């Protein structure tokens, strides 16, 4: 596979552009779920029109080195998400560990851009961002450990193959009820981590508009547009990832592909419903609680799978 081919994967299909379109569709689904759940506020990332108008905006001031971070961090986030999509869909090789670190790079890049632009500073907002990052990362790491323990595989393509041969992870009963129950808890932890990655519910942290007047480069214009685009892309990648880890199956026929799409839609709807329900929770306290719950669920799931494997 050539260098140019990989660029095409990352940029076009199944990378950034595809994710943007799928994410826009996912956003509509989330809007419907929020409306049905009567969520108190819109906690979805901005839509394509908003991204376009952000693109037309203009950062103020000259580019300084911190500005270099503001320009580089959003594309790093977008293409990290794109890379994950390429691994999950089998276009690029990868394992569970690189998926984790790419999904860690995504919020790290967002933090970097926010700090560099002076939007995320000290205080409750920053603490909330840090806590959410660590909590969601821990939950995701434990969920991936659950998948690795149950399948005995680390390469992503082999994890999918295992599920094609043995049935999806959540339904496979070959290693006992304890392992199945543990996988369900791992899935719950992964869903909470997914909420954090998609910035739904209380993870949808509002920045302070017009604050930090001394920032030479504001988070506006193309950097903001790319950041918002990466948020939209995340709406497509996270449900796809969770489905691939816990609900994967064959994709050789059209109806298997359609079934995959239904499963991804189901995960998206469940995430949206949980996010809408949790949108009533506010403040950094809510972030800590939700992240902690996700960690606890994933840890409990891991222990159950471990116990099941040992018996």
């Amino acid at each position, binding site marked *: 596979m050539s260098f140019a081919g990989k660029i095409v994967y990352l940029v076009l299909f199944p990378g950034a552009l595809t994710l943007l379109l799928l994410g826009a569709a996912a956003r509509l689904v989330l809007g419907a779920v929020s409306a049905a759940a009567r969520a108190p506020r819109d906690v979805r990332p901005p839509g394509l029109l908003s991204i376009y108008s952000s693109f037309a905006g203009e950062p103020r001031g000259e580019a300084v080195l911190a500005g270099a971070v503001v320009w580089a961090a959003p594309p790093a986030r977008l293409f990290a998400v794109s890379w994950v999509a390429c691994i999950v869909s089998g276009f690029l090789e990868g394992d569970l560990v690189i998926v984790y670190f790419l999904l860690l790079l995504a919020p*790290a890049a967002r933090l970097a851009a926010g700090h560099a632009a002076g939007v995320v500073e000290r205080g409750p907002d920053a603490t909330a961002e840090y806590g959410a*990052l660590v909590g969601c990362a821990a939950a995701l*790491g434990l969920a991936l450990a659950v998948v690795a323990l149950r399948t005995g595989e680390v390469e992503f393509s082999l994890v999918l193959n295992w599920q094609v041969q043995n049935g999806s992870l959540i339904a496979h009963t070959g290693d006992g009820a304890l392992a199945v129950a543990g996988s369900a808890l791992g899935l719950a932890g992964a869903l909470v981590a997914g909420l954090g990655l998609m910035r739904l519910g209380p993870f949808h942290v509002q920045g302070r508009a017009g604050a930090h007047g001394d920032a030479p480069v504001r988070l506006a214009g193309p950097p903001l547009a790319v950041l918002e685009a990466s948020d939209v892309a995340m709406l497509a990648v996270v449900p796809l990832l969770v489905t691939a880890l816990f609900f994967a199956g064959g994709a050789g026929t059209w109806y298997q592909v359609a079934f995959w799409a239904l499963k991804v839609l189901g995960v998206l709807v469940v995430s949206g419903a949980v996010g809408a329900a949790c949108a009533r929770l506010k403040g950094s306290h809510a972030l800590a609680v939700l992240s902690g719950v996700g960690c606890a669920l994933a840890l409990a799931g891991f222990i159950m799978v471990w116990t099941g494997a040992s018996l």
Partner: protein
Amino acid sequence: MSALLAVTVILPFAFAVLAPGLGGSARLRPAFCVAYSLAFTGLNLVLLNGFLAEGGLAWGSLRVDRLNFPVFLVLNLLAAAVILYAGFESSGADGFARGFLIASMFAGSGFASLLVLARGLLAFAVLWEAVTLAALAGLLVAGRGMMRRRLVAFLPWLVSDVLFLSGAVLSKVLLAESAVLIEPPLTAGSEAGVTVVMLLFLASVLLRLSVFPFSFWVADLADRADPAWSAMFLGAVNFLVAGFRLLVVAALIARLAAADWSVLLALLGAFSVVAGPVYALRSRRLGQYVSGMYAFEAGFLLAGVALYSRAGIESATYSLLVAPLAITAMLFACGTVSYLKGGSELGQNRLSPRAARAAFAALLLSGVSIAGLPPMGGFVARALTALAGIERAFVAPLYALLAAAGLAGAAVVVAALARVMSRLFAAKGEPLTGRRPAVAAGLAALAACGASLLLGLFPGILLRNFIAGGSRLLFRTGFEGPGVVFRGSGTAIAHAFSFYTTWSETAAAFLFVVLVLAVAAFFMVDAKRHARPDAGTMPDITCE
């Protein structure tokens, strides 16, 4: 090639003799240090070429093999970068004190590079103490604050030396062994004797590596020592030498001890991997941040070693070679920043990134590498160790929890890095002291970061040429110890490892598209701004 090896070994000592005079002169010091840095780097690269062509080198009783040569090479190249930094960095002492400090750095790096080649325990112990003496001399002659406080901060280092020497003496007395890498079976001694000796060796190296909770001394030293001293003796020398010693001690434990120590070592490593970044996250001084990151790197090294598998040892060796690049760059940056700020307290007198461009970039990139974000060298180290842990978990599921702890620790490192950057730099800030950093000092830091990126993009350079062969010098194929069960790599992990040796095209494609989008967006906005000279104030901002 023997002659070249001889020159490479002797050159630091020759320059150490000249350093008090030439290094002490403010006019001559930069040229002196640049000359050494360039010459030494060139020598080592030629030596690398020769080693790859011949498969080994020797000079007298010094033998270079696939296990010790990469450590030797990285140590020398890092020492060259630190000398370059020391030649231009002007935060510390001047005059004769500076010259003597640079002399101690030459001597310390020279003794350290000989140390990794030593095969006899007596020579190893003598050189180990020679490094300590050089470090102590440099610390006492230059640094911040009172000399007494610097000496107190150095005490744990001395304690670790006492533990090591005790172990070395008992190894000779109880076990009648005087080799660095003891080959079983033992001709004397009991299991109790083996346990005592191994405990002493292990305690010594864990203290020197600053495995949590023994990491407090790094914070004190980093805040009080001269920045060049910290970069050389904490960043380059200590981590490489102590880490190399850890590999050796782990091999000795596997060869000689009847009990299985792997779970204990793995738990210690996992604890350090989580506690170190938490300590860094709560830091109020730069030294505490450095200490937390140091403990994190040490924890990952220990965790890899504790797996007692081919994959684990190879991942630990990779971590050993890559981590000092990030640590040294971090120490360069912290030294420059504290010099410009006039102190190492976080949150006070924040700098503008423009005032310290290279330090800003080096601190950010070193932190990204330590966290293990792709495509830096630290990411490959984390990934290999995590994969090795997951492989071991297929037999003992506890190791999956430890692997997950490592992954969570990386997330805490990211948070700690973000917090420290926000507390050191602000959009509008200037050095309170009015000082300016030297360009060449910044180049040294960026070169270390560049090397980390290079090894991240092309990990096969180390994995294929050195690490695969070197691990077999510690643990032969089919190794069986009295207590430890050493596992070879299964198909799944071997295939996963091979992915990283060939991943450079994908990683480069990622970097390429990120840079293209960033640069294209910047120039597009710049062109728009120039086309509309009457562009007014920016629209109101919302970041969600």
